[in-house]
C-alpha cells in the first residue's frame, strides 16, 4: 500500500484521510503546523518564498520523516506562485534525499486526462470509476459538513456566555464527524454537530461586530498559520465571516462558477478589471460586498511577499475610503508574533466599536469630552 500524505489545511485533513483510506492508500497524517514544522520549512525553503510555501515545505519534511512516499497537492495555472509549488517542493525534497513523488492535481476542466491519470495513481486496488466517484462524493459531503460546522462556530462564539465553551464543543463534534463514514453517518454527524454548537449557552442581547475575512486561501484556511485569528476575534465579541471555504474554492475551480462569485467579480471590476492571480481580485471584491452588506470591518490576511495581495492592499486603501469600511491587513510570516497581533486586533475592534456605537451613546461621549 502506498503511503500517502497531503498538506494540512485547517480541519480538511479529516476528509482527505477518509478519501485516501477509502481508495486503498495508507495515510501518513500531516501534523498540525508547529514551531518544528516552521523550522524545517524555513531551513529548506527559499528565504522569500511565501509563508504557505514554508509551512508546506516543513509539513512535507515532517511527513517524509514519518515515511510518506506520495504527496498529493493541488496545482493551479497562475499567475500565483502556488501553481509552481509542487514541482519546486519536489526538487527540494529530492535534493534533500527523500525519495518522494508529488501528485499535483490541476483544475480538471483544463487537464481532464491528467486528472484521471492522477486519480488512478491513487487507486492501487483498481476500483471502478463508479466506486471512486462514490468515495469522492462522500468526501465532498464530509468537507461540506466540516465547513458548515465551522461557519456556525463563527456565529456562536462571539455570543457565548462561558468563554471558550464554543471551542470546546467544536473540538468534540469534529471527532464525531471524523468518525462518521457512510453517507448516512456523515449526515447524522453533521446535523448533531450543528445542534450541539447551537445549544451552547448564548447571550442573544449581546451587541456583536461583524467582520469579513479576506485574503490568500492558505493563511485563511489554516488556523495555525494565522495564529487562530477567528478564535481570537470571536473571543473579542466579533462575528467573523470568512470569504473563502475549501468547498467554495474547489467548486469555483472545478465546477461552474457560483452566483456569489460572479457578484464578487463584478464588485471588484471597477478596481481590478482582470484576474491578477492568487486571490487579489477576490479580496477587493469581497471587501466591496462586505461593505455593501453593512459589515463593520474587513481583515485581510496575506502571506508576506504575496504579490496579488500587495496589489489588492494598495487598492483596498481607496476601497476603504470610498465605502467607509475600515480594513486591517496582516502580512503573515514565521516572524509574526501572537502578542503583536492581538494588540492590533484589540485596537481594531475598539475602533470599529467606537465607529458603530458612538451615535447610540451621545451622553457618554459628551461626558468623556467634557472631562
Amino acid at each position, binding site marked *: 500500500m502506498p503511503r500517502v500524505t497531503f498538506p494540512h489545511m485547517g480541519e480538511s485533513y479529516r476528509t482527505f484521510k477518509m478519501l485516501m483510506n477509502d481508495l486503498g492508500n495508507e495515510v501518513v497524517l500531516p501534523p498540525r503546523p508547529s514551531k518544528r514544522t516552521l523550522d524545517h520549512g524555513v531551513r529548506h525553503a527559499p528565504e522569500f*518564498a511565501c509563508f504557505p*510555501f514554508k509551512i508546506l515545505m516543513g509539513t512535507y519534511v515532517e511527513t517524509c520523516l514519518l515515511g510518506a512516499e506520495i504527496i498529493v497537492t493541488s496545482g493551479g*495555472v497562475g499567475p500565483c506562485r502556488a*501553481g509552481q509549488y509542487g514541482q519546486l517542493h519536489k526538487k527540494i525534497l529530492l535534493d534533500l534525499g527523500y525519495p518522494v513523488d508529488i501528485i499535483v492535481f490541476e483544475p480538471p476542466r483544463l487537464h481532464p486526462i491528467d486528472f484521471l491519470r492522477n486519480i488512478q495513481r491513487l487507486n492501487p486496488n483498481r476500483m471502478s470509476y463508479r466506486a471512486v466517484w462514490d468515495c469522492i462524493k462522500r468526501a465532498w459531503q464530509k468537507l461540506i459538513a466540516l465547513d458548515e460546522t465551522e461557519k456556525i462556530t463563527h456565529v456562536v462564539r462571539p455570543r457565548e456566555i462561558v468563554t471558550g465553551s464554543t471551542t470546546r464543543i467544536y473540538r468534540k463534534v469534529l471527532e464525531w464527524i471524523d468518525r462518521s463514514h457512510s453517507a448516512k453517518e456523515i449526515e447524522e454527524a453533521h446535523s448533531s454537530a450543528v445542534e450541539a454548537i447551537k445549544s451552547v449557552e448564548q447571550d442573544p442581547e449581546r451587541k456583536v461586530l461583524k467582520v469579513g475575512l479576506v485574503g490568500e486561501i492558505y493563511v485563511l484556511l489554516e488556523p495555525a498559520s494565522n495564529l487562530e485569528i477567528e478564535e481570537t476575534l470571536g473571543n473579542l465579541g466579533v462575528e467573523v465571516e470568512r470569504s473563502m471555504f475549501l468547498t467554495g474554492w474547489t467548486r469555483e475551480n472545478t465546477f461552474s462558477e457560483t452566483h456569489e462569485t460572479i457578484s464578487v467579480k463584478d464588485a471588484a471590476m471597477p478596481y*481590478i478589471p482582470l484576474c*491578477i492571480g492568487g486571490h487579489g481580485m477576490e479580496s477587493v471584491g469581497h471587501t466591496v460586498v462586505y461593505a455593501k452588506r453593512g459589515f463593520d470591518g474587513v481583515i485581510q490576511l496575506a502571506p508576506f511577499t504575496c504579490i496579488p495581495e500587495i496589489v489588492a492592499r494598495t*487598492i483596498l486603501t481607496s476601497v476603504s475610503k470610498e465605502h467607509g469600511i475600515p480594513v486591517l491587513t496582516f502580512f503573515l510570516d514565521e516572524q509574526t508574533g501572537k502578542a503583536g497581533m492581538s494588540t492590533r486586533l484589540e485596537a481594531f475592534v475598539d475602533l470599529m466599536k467606537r465607529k458603530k456605537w458612538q451615535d447610540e451613546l451621545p451622553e457618554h461621549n459628551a461626558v468623556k469630552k467634557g472631562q
Partner: protein
Amino acid sequence: MTARVGIPSSLLYYMHYPMWHTFLTELNLDVVPSGQTNKNFLDQGVKEALADACVPVKLFFGHTLTLRDKVDYLFIPRVVCLNQKTIYCPKFLGLPDMIRYGLPDMPPIIDIQMDVREGRMALFRAYNQIGSSFGAGSLQIARAYLKALYSAARYNALMQKGWHPPEAIKAVLNPNSKDIAPTARKGDLNFAVLGYPYVVHDDYISVGLIGKLKKLGVNVITLENLPPATLARQNCDLDKIMFWTYSDLVLRASHYLFKSGQVDGIIHLTAFGCGPDSMVDKLMELTAKEYSNIPYMSLTIDEHSGDAGVSTRLEAFTDMVKRKKEV
C-alpha cells in the same frame, strides 16, 4: 500645443520603450520619460508605495510621481501576455490600478490591455485604441505602428549584437549620435548577469553592478543578449513552465548558459521581496549544483543596498572565478 505623454523609465521601459516612444512620437505626441533613477525617485517611491511591495514597484511609484506635474497623460499599458505562452508577473497586471488608487492627483492613465491571446491582431488593436483615443486617423496609426515595430526590431537586433538596453535605447532613438560605442569586449572573463531588465539595467538600484564588473575586467552579457529562439527551445527540466514572462526567460537563460558552458560565471541579481524570484533563485541554485563547473552567485539588492557589500561580493566572486581558471 501637443499633448505630453509620460512614460516612467522603469519596469517595462527597458523592453518596450523604443517601440512606445516611436509610436507615440509618430502620433505627434510629446513623449516624456522620467529619466534615469536617482535617490529622489527611490525616496519618493518608498514613501508612497506599500512597505511590503518589492523594490521595483516602489521605484515605479517614484518614477510616476516625478512625472505627475510634467505631463498630461501617463502611459502605463496593462501588459498581460506578448508571446502566447507566459504572462507578466501579477504586479504588471495590476500596475495601472495600483497607480490610480495608490497615488493622489494623477493625470489620466492610458491603460490599454495588451494580451496577444485575445486574437491574431490583438496587439495592433491595442495600439489602434491608443491612437484613436488621441484622435489619430487610421492611416496615421497604421504608419506609426509599422515604424514602432521597426524600432523594436532594430532595438532587439542591437541587443543581439551585445548592446545593453540603456545604450541600445539611445542608439535607436537618435540614429545620428555617433558617440555611443557598443559594449566592448576586452576583459578576460565572461560573466552572465541574469535578472529582470528593470533591476539589472537600472544603474541606481543595481548599485552600478555592470560598471563594477567591467572595472574588474569582466565582460557582461545579460538576458537580452541571448538569442530568443534558442531560449524558447531550452529545456528547463520542469514539469510546468514558469508562468511569468521574465522569470521564465531568466530560468531558460540560466539553463542555456549552464548547459552550453559559454560563460565563466553566472550572477543572479534579484530584488528583495520579489515573489517569483524566490522560486527562480532556488531552481537556479539546484541547477548550479548539477553544473558545478560554472560558479554561481545570487545577489539580493534592496532600497538600502550598500555599495560596499555589493563590491565585496563581486570582488570575491571574480577572485574565485579567476583562481579557479588559473588552476
